[in-house]
């Protein structure tokens, strides 16, 4: 029932609100807070801690935007959304940005009326199974029952993979992650499938995480990133360059700890990044010191990664593809100049 009401409510927005979507920056400033769509609780990416404060890699993107625009990373209203409700919420104007482990695909980028602003995490889809099943590869999963969340790319990838490999399967799709996981744990499904990072995060919620393993197979590309609506180019730029600012800051060695001393750096790239020279921030519609605000409040990309999902977190995910391009990964921030 709740689900249907949420959907209809969002729909009412779309039907009744006059077209006033074009000025997100002004709306955010007037409101004094950013409305950010996140997951309903995915450790490492977006989940509330024991004091109810949202943390995670996806959350940090929103905090960075709030820092750049409002100079306060806490001025964010987080809206937890299931996979299937997230796009309607963004389309309807309820959100300013959606930062919810969302895969960039062509149809989402076009016919859903959305713009993907970049990739905050390069992921791929995998399978979680019980150790006791003694399955070593996804190829052995013929005839298995698979639990998945509705409205995800995962639901479609499973269909593709099993069809391509001519394997039979049964897919049971749930609207929330909790229901999906609970049913898997109850034994209704042999397999729980999702993006690999999320498998690690969800595994921590199981009663006996060590009884379950993530199979080595990765069956898809899942570039996850922040999303905005079509129709507001300025806001699109702000969100996009907030992420790139964090990545460039890491590349240039600007961290939360040293950002103030870096203001005195003679290097031209750092001077431009931190707004000591030029007016790049103003070209975005922000202040000159926009990146200083982001780094001071949130830190650079690498810091956020390690803190939330990397070595400094219970997930301890290897950076892998998400290393910087000059360190063997594919994270690459276009030049800030």
């Amino acid at each position: 029932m709740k689900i249907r009401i949420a959907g209809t409510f969002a729909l009412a927005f779309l039907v009744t609100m006059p077209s006033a979507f074009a000025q997100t920056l002004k709306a955010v400033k007037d409101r004094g807070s950013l409305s950010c769509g996140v997951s309903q609780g995915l450790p490492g990416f977006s989940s509330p801690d024991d004091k109810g404060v949202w943390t995670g890699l996806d959350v940090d993107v929103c905090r960075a935007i709030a820092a750049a625009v409002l100079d306060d990373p806490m001025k964010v209203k987080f809206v937890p959304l299931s996979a299937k409700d997230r796009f309607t919420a963004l389309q309807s104007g309820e959100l300013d940005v959606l930062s919810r482990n969302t895969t960039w695909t062509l149809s989402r980028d076009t016919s859903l009326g959305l713009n993907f602003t970049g990739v905050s995490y390069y992921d791929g889809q995998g399978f979680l199974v019980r150790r006791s099943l003694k399955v070593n590869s996804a190829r052995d999963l013929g005839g298995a029952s698979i639990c998945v969340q509705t409205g995800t790319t995962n639901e479609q990838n499973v269909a593709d993979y099993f069809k391509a490999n001519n394997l039979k399967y049964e897919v049971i799709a749930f609207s929330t992650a909790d229901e999906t996981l609970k049913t898997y744990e109850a034994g209704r499904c042999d397999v729980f499938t999702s993006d690999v990072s999320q498998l690690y995060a969800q595994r921590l919620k199981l009663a006996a995480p060590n009884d379950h393993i993530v199979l080595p197979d990765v069956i898809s590309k899942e570039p996850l990133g922040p999303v905005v609506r079509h129709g507001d180019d300025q806001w699109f730029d702000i969100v996009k360059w907030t992420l790139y600012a964090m990545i460039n800051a890491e590349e240039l060695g600007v961290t939360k700890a040293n950002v103030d001393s870096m203001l005195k750096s003679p290097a031209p790239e750092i001077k431009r990044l931190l707004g000591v020279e030029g007016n790049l921030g103003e070209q975005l519609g922000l202040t000159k010191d926009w990146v200083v605000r982001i780094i001071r409040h949130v830190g650079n990309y690498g810091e956020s990664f390690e803190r939330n999902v990397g070595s400094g977190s219970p997930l301890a995910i290897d950076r892998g593809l998400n290393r910087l391009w000059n360190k063997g990964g594919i994270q690459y921030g276009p030049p800030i100049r």
Partner: protein
Amino acid sequence: MPGECRTPPLQLGHRLWRMTAGRAGGWGILAQLLLLLVVVWLGYEITSNAQANLKAQRIAAGLGFLNNTAGFGVSQSLIAYDESDTYLRVFAVGLLNTLLVSFIGCVLATIIGFMVGLGRLSPNWLVARLAGGYVELIRNLPLLFQILFWYLAVLGTLPGARGSISVFGVAFLNNRGVVVPRPVPLDGFAPFVVAIGLALAVTVAMKILARRRLYQTGKPLRVWPWALGLLVGLPAASAVLGGAPFSFEQPELRGFNFVGGTRLVPELIALVLALSTYTAAFIAEIVRAGIQAVPKGQIEAASALGLRRGAALRLIVVPQSLRVILPPLTNQYLNLTKNSSLAVAIGYPDLVSVFAGTTLSQTGQAIEIIAITMGVYLLISLATSAGMNLYNYYLFRNRSA
């Protein structure tokens, strides 16, 4: 009596005037017109706003998406479906699944509801208390909770496929559902069906004749031994003469689960159980109220005539109480159908789950999909109401109001 009846004149013009103008006369018509204008204007505003918004954001619109490939799997389907089918087919799959749970749910809820409702009125203290306890317990717990209870706490605790509970080695019960042998039609199938049809037809005819004789002569005629003989004898004769009607495909454990046979998925079982037991609690109250609405004198008269309690209920009380029972019963059927959309919580692929859920989030066409879904529920509800009204009319057509 017919001679005394005279149909009143139609007075169409007058009635129309009363309908539109009401007591306010000409002003009434003006007010109605204004209201109509406001409604039309609102409708126009909403559509043009929606169109402008969709266009400004370049969100796809229209019904073209129905022909696109869905690309996702569905766990239960009454028609052939695979991931390369279109969204239109997904819609049909979801709709049929919704109709399936609703139909089975309504039938079961009615049976349980009547039993519990009659039970509450039973002179047997224990039966009455049990029925009362059932009603109070079930109707006071949230439905979603009951669905999850059946799904996770009851069916979810069954053993896995490898430790299935075997029912005489024929059917198997595990946390993937119930697997039973599947009948596969053989050559003898067609004559078998004909034999059953014939037996049924003859039984009905005998029943009608017996009733007519009862009314004419007052002598009851026992039909059921004959009917039983026919219903068993004819199909059996066909099986012997025309060959076995079908063989059974035996399910067999292979890999993760049973292969072959027919399987009822636990999502369906849990949903049907929860919906029917829940709705039955309300139906029981409706039945009780309906029966208590029948004047006591009727029951006393029935027992004065020497009818047993069962016969009195069946012949005197229930038919009269139906007049009170039917309208609220229709409501319960409608509720059950709408409540079936809670299926998403346990992954049963109903219309809301596969169409207003997955299809919506894959295509993003919220307006079209929500409108279609609402329209479908409206249609199902109207059709159910119409059916029940027709039944009501049929039952009471001979009685004046």
